[in-house]
């Protein structure tokens, strides 16, 4: 049984390690340091932690000011609040000015659970992805989240780091390298490619196991970096498997699926299916129930795979 740990914890540990190793790293919070785990940094390095209270626009602007003077600020909040309320500040103060501000957005996706729609960020990957100079990272487990946090600090420009609330299985290994922009093929396959990020990577691996029982050989790719996107791994999958399923804990509009489609459609169009939230808001509930109700389970990925294989077959058939 894999160890369960939230990606926000991986972030918290990464930030703490940065506090120890990099004197320029500072952190800001809008009264969510406990939830985002920035509180561990706050407790150890109080002089480098700044509270701005419940004021996300101010937090991002203040982070920009710190970055102007050589600091590497992590601005921490719920993913929805910092990307939503402060989109304009992320755009101008951070991205347009190309500053090394790292936006750590916790509680991304449905697995926020009982708090409901207002806290369940389901569009923020689309928003962050659209900003020039932004790097968008969606780690799949706590180990990867810690590595992503360390990589974010090293990266010269703006970074958005999407983290989750719930304990999820650790599916990567300590020795696996993490490089921004380099997707990981976790399982080779030739019939269909399952491209996922965040918690959906584990679901994609489960889906691949289920598909194998039906004689379908699925490739599984962890696309932890939505931007800059790993075109070559995606195109290789399109060329070699001819059918793609994307899976994200996010709207099907504008996130991982769209990012992959943008690459594929222009270079090597193949049938695709998007597993994600179907353009609706979240709701309150137990995270497990919500993932089922919103069709984000391994079974939803396997069904999408069968659908896309049917399309692939038809496409091949129509060329004969």
């Amino acid at each position, binding site marked *: 049984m894999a160890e369960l740990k939230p990606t926000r914890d991986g972030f918290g540990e990464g930030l703490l390690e940065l506090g120890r190793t990099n004197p320029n790293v*500072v952190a800001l919070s809008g009264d969510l340091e406990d939830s985002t785990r920035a509180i561990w940094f706050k407790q150890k390095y109080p*002089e*480098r932690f*700044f*509270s*701005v*209270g419940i*004021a996300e*626009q*101010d937090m*991002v*602007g*203040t*982070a*920009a*000011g*710190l*970055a*102007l*003077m*050589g*600091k590497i*600020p992590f601005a921490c909040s719920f993913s929805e609040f910092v990307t939503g309320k402060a989109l*304009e*500040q992320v*755009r*101008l*103060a951070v991205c*347009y*000015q190309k500053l090394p501000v790292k936006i750590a957005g916790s509680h991304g996706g449905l697995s926020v659970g009982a708090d409901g729609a207002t806290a369940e960020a389901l569009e923020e990957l689309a928003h962050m992805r659209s900003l020039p100079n932004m790097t968008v990272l969606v780690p799949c487990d706590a180990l990867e989240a810690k590595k992503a946090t360390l990589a974010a600090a090293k990266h010269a420009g703006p970074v958005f780091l999407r983290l989750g609330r719930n304990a999820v299985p650790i599916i990567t290994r300590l020795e696996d390298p993490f490089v921004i922009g380099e997707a990981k093929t976790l399982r080779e396959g030739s019939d269909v490619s399952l491209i996922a990020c965040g918690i959906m990577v584990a679901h994609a691996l489960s889906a691949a196991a289920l598909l194998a029982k039906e004689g379908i050989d699925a490739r599984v790719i962890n696309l932890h970096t939505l931007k800059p996107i790993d075109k070559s791994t995606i195109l290789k999958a399109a060329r070699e498997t001819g059918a793609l399923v994307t899976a994200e804990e996010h709207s099907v509009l504008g996130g991982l699926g769209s990012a992959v489609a943008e690459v594929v459609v222009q270079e090597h169009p193949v049938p695709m299916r998007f597993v994600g939230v179907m353009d609706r808001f979240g709701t309150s509930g137990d995270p497990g129930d919500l993932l089922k109700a919103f069709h984000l389970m391994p079974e939803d990925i396997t069904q999408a795979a069968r659908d896309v294989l049917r399309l692939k077959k038809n496409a091949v058939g129509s060329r004969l």
Partner: protein
Amino acid sequence: MRPDLTTLRRLAVEIRKTILQTIAKAGSGHPGGSLSMVELLIGLYWYTLRHDPNHPAWPERDVFLLSKGHGCPCLYTVLAYQGYFPKDELMTLRHYPTRLQGHPEKNSPPGVEIASGSLGQGLSMANGIALADRLDGRTRRIFCLLGDGEAQEGQVWEAAMTAHHHRLDRVCAIVDANGLQQNGPVKELKDLEPLPEKWRAFGWHAMEIDGHDLNQVMDAYDEAETITGKPQVVVARTVKGKGVSFMEHNPAWHGMAPKPDELERALKELDAQAV
């Protein structure tokens, strides 16, 4: 030591003329709000600011942030007159390709500290600089110029709370309170008065001055320097379009370039003020 007032007044006339010439050449820009902030910037760049045009990145320099980014024709003119870049580059305002963007881009050219234009953002950045300075042991001053209309943006007050909470006494805000915004008087669109009292309620040391009286401007900057433990704000009562009779108090000149005949009339009026 204060510079000679007559010299500064003549300088103000020249700066106003240049501002209008650059906007007229560009065919667009914001004359009203650029003209209202002239004395406020003269007081900074010719008196208060510790800065060096030959070393725009001097780490100990006092920092000026233009939060009301549309006033950049004034900032660019001031920087050029100070020697940050050649004066003849001023006529490239808003022309592609140019360093003189319609709303400022960071370091474009050096001397421009931040990007702005989307209102309400500068004061937060000023606070961030102040927090970094505290970590690094710098005591230089940080000035941030805002518009009064701009102070309708909630982020300004978030930043005001932050500066108070963290006792950022090296931050001095300046409000170019010309009483007008794009679609009319501030009083009619969203009244901000009593403005100095609002800042005081947020824990700031607030001063209220005639923003075109250079003595009052320099006095205020001097007074701000003496305040410890709280940030300072200079609420400068100014006239939008100051210096040109048909632009003064006229919202139409918020974002409209003068046509050639209007420019000629304006320059004549300003020349008459130079004596």
